[in-house]
């Protein structure tokens, strides 16, 4: 099987779906000739033209609103939001309009729209270009939220998102655009709500999302050399969430750490940990730990920024303590 970058995987997914369905189009800032600052969309305007790869002014609420209206009337827009941090600019259109149109109309209207954006710190971009804000949108009923952890997931989840009849927000890790993974040449889709057991284990479950899947895998590798068997699970979508696979694992291992790059308080880690506590309480030998980003705006200085996100060493350290029966609290 060939290896391609996450960037190429996203590009392929969008190109394939745009070929398949003439009602799809791309819209956002510098998506055409520039192909976005990360060059993820390069080449698409040459194939599909400026009618379907639409450059907009720097007006996020405006183009998001236009995409919602287009989605309500027979189009399937793919909206490019240059940085996940800009999601605050489009909150009304995303959360009050797109997320609620189906419900408020009693199912008569629907908004088949993909919002692709990104997350991830440690790029030395400071507090307004480094946030991981997926928990904010996962809180809103009516939205689906996908968090690809490699090029393979990025392609399969994007294709599913484009075919979904609902608004889907995909957060790509902007630090992973140039990372390669095995991606089949032949067509494939990854269904929403199906977690991927990346590594089987018996002593502890490490649930990681997006970039934190790699962190969990590295921690598991380290733990294996010490005789601790860690299971690593990537939920792939947090809405819908594959609770069954997570619960099955935790019932087997009796311990779990949830690792995610969003802020730890009121976040994705809290939601997943809470569900495990509620539904697998009698199987647990230790409290389910949350490991999210520190509750501080992302600092610029590398010396500070690097300590705000969970690391493999930190995960392994907590896992050791949990397995040793030390009742600890999350950092």
């Amino acid at each position, binding site marked *: 099987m060939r290896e391609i970058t996450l960037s190429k995987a996203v590009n392929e997914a969008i190109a394939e779906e745009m070929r398949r369905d003439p009602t799809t189009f791309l819209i956002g800032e510098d998506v055409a000739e520039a192909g976005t600052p990360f060059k993820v969309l390069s080449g698409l305007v040459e194939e599909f033209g400026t009618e379907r790869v639409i450059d907009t002014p720097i007006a996020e609420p405006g*183009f998001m609103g236009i995409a919602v*209206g287009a989605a309500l009337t027979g189009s399937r827009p793919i909206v490019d939001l240059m940085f996940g941090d800009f999601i605050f600019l489009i909150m009304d259109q995303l959360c009050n309009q797109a997320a609620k*149109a189906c419900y408020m*109309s*009693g*199912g008569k209207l629907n908004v088949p729209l993909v919002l692709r954006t990104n997350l991830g710190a440690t790029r030395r971009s400071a507090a307004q270009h480094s946030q991981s804000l997926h928990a904010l949108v996962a809180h809103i009923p*009516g939205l689906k939220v996908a968090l690809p952890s490699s090029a393979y997931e990025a392609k399969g989840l994007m294709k599913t998102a484009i075919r979904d009849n*609902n608004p889907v927000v995909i957060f790509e890790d902007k630090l992973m655009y140039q990372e390669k993974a095995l991606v089949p040449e032949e067509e494939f889709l990854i269904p929403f709500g199906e977690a991927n057991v990346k590594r089987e284990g018996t002593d502890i479950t490490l649930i990681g999302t997006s970039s934190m899947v790699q962190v969990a895998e590295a921690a598991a590798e380290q733990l294996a050399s010490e005789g601790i068997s860690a299971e690593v699970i990537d939920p792939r979508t947090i809405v819908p969430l594959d609770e069954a696979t997570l619960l099955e694992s935790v019932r087997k291992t009796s311990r779990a750490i949830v690792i995610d790059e969003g802020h730890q308080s009121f976040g994705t880690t809290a939601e997943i940990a809470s569900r495990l506590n509620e539904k697998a309480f009698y199987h647990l030998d230790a409290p389910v730990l949350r490991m999210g980003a520190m509750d501080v705006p992302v600092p610029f200085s590398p010396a500070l920024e690097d300590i705000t996100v969970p690391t493999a060493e930190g995960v392994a350290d907590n896992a050791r303590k949990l397995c040793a029966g030390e009742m600890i609290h999350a950092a």
Partner: protein
Amino acid sequence: MAKKTNTEDYLRMYRQMVRIRAFEDNANQLYLSAKMPGLTHMYSGQEAVAVGICDALEATDKITSTHRGHGHCVAKGAEFKQMFCELLGKEEGYCRGKGGSMHIADQENGNLGANAIVGGSMGIATGAALSAKLAKTGDVAVCFFGDGATAQGLWYEVMNMAALWHLPVIYACENNGYSEYTRTDEIAAGSLTARAEAFGIEAHKVDGQDVLAVNELTERLIARARKGEGPFFLELATYRYHGHHVGDINREYYRSKDEESEWKENRDPILNFGVWLTGEGIVSEEELAEIRAGIRADAEAAVAYALEAAYPDVSEVDMHVYAPNDAA
């Protein structure tokens, strides 16, 4: 399209204006008699705007509506029964009782829905026009909004794009003089038409109490929008007879009773159109009275029906959060 000249067209517009007034009078009574959950915003006084514009549209053309949206909904072809059911939260409502007055939508007639966020549908209407352009359907979209919504930044963002891309959208600003409880001249600097013109958008001011003037202008602009000459901006001078919402009863601190009487007695769109119709010999006052009585009876029957209609089953509470996907 030429100015409408036949009796059928005139009477259809008269009937639609009377239907809106009858709907609102009944909705107000439902509120006052505590039979309606929540509250609502009356369109009475502004009928010539919705009817003049919507009569120029085809069923496949799209509109977006506002929190003051019953008039747009009726004018775009909705039925009383499903509308009253929706206002009362009943299963047979246009949105199965999930939207209510502020979210009523009737997609079969091209009404993409009322919106409880002031200015919230400006992007949606513009996007509907983008869909029409991409799919080459020839449809147009009309975005209804009030003068209060002109303060929202979204309008300027989407006007910019609509002008750049020549989208078939008409921004129809119903200037009823009040932004909630505040006079519009206290919230709007300069001129509204100049704001659209700054984007190179052709802007028109029209008397929103004159249904024929509104209709004639809209028909011309719609025909041009279908040919790719849009977008356009319309400022329609009109007046809201009731308060901001049905509970806004004592409003002398922001507008006088004399001012309200002046509009109701001398500038009422239905009265004045009726006088014109009889003056031109198109129809007699007796025939108009018969039309009004028939519509009143229809509205009352629909209210009676809606009051007795069933609420949705509680099992519907978590239905429609997501649209189903086709089986793979």
